[in-house]
């Protein structure tokens, strides 16, 4: 932890970072995001295995648009999101540094998203065993059972859009759910609007989702949103090729191959 505080102090002192987005102790064993711009507050920061928020989500928020030099604590999930966001040219006016943990739990400073992209491993994000079990159960369902399953699950959804707010890849300043000319997503609390919202969210994540699990973690009602993203990533990989997180891979729906294969178009 000493090394971590030293790195952050140096970043703030040298002006390489005007803002540090990290973690601090929250309720109980939990960790919560901390925003620090004063070197005297560095002691608050922690970085351990309990840290799970994907902090890259804050980099595109309007509140931090005007801050150019930002340092972020990056878990593997955060790294994936940052690299994909950089690939979508979201950080062109930013000077970012990242603090990551190496295998021995030592803090390591990485400057620039390009360097972070090289640091990023190829391994995928693993699901918890409960999630794996649920996914396997879901895969075995018939169409009718799936429809019934989502009818039941989505009847709890209050459309609070926490999944949208927590998602690093959701950074549009104007979202389809707020458009009312025409009204794409029905506003009244009906199941249909909930289906429309979640289908739309999935489609807008297609080929962009970094599988960080922030949406499911943020859901106050505990909806199994990982099923949606994980299945989509799997299907895309099966039909359109591997899902690689790097600076220069275009998302699947932004590009095409003349010989893309499908078996349902007549």
């Amino acid at each position, binding site marked *: 932890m000493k090394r971590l505080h030293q790195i952050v102090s140096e970043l703030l002192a040298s002006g390489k970072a005007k803002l540090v987005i990290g973690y601090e102790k929250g309720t109980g064993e939990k960790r919560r995001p901390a925003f620090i711009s004063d070197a005297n507050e560095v002691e608050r920061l922690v970085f351990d295995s309990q840290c799970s928020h994907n902090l890259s989500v804050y980099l595109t928020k309007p509140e931090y648009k005007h801050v150019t030099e930002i340092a972020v604590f990056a878990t593997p999930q955060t790294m994936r999101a940052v690299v994909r966001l950089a690939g979508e040219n979201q950080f062109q006016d930013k000077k970012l540094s990242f603090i990551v943990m190496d295998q021995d739990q030592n803090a390591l400073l990485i400057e620039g998203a390009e360097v972070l992209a090289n640091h990023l491993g190829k391994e995928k994000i693993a699901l918890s065993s409960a999630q794996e079990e649920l996914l396997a159960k879901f895969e075995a369902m018939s169409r009718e059972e799936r429809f019934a399953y989502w009818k039941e699950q989505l009847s709890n959804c209050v459309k609070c859009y926490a999944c949208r707010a927590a998602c690093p890849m959701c950074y549009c300043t104007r979202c389809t759910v707020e458009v009312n000319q025409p009204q794409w997503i029905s506003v009244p609390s009906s199941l249909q609007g909930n289906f429309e919202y979640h289908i*739309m969210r999935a489609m807008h994540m297609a080929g962009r989702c970094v599988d960080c699990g922030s949406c499911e973690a943020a859901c106050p009602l505990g909806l199994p949103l990982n099923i949606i993203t994980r299945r989509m990533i799997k299907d895309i990989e099966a039909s359109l090729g591997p899902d690689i997180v790097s600076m220069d891979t275009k998302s699947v729906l932004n590009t095409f191959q003349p010989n893309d294969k499908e078996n349902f178009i007549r």
Partner: protein
Amino acid sequence: MENNIKVVAFVCNWCTYAGADLTGTSRIKYSSDVKIVRFPCTGRIDFMLLMKAFAEGADGIIVSGCHPNDCHYTSGNFHARRRWIVFKSVLETFGIDTRRIQFSWVSAAEGAKWAEIVNTTVERIKELGPYTEYRELAGVEAP
């Protein structure tokens, strides 16, 4: 009441719309249960339009455009094809009945193919019946 189904066809202006026109000028009869909506290109057909069609009363949907390599705008249908592949997978995740959506390529010269696509799709939708399963969601309070 058996005939009371609605099929909406989202077609591109340059190929399928012209193809459907040819079906008419060739005096080939096809089902009148289909309502055709003309778009500049299949690349313009947003997936939300299909969701809205189901919500507003469509029992089946046909989406059709130029064959690959024949797009008026060079690549619109290539992009559309990828979108359909992903959309179909997303719909299957949610248990939406994908048998009710027919994707096809119909060129301006394929009047007979258009009639065949419409007729087989309408036939299939008639067998499946009206898509009340999805429309009823609008009336279910949630939460």
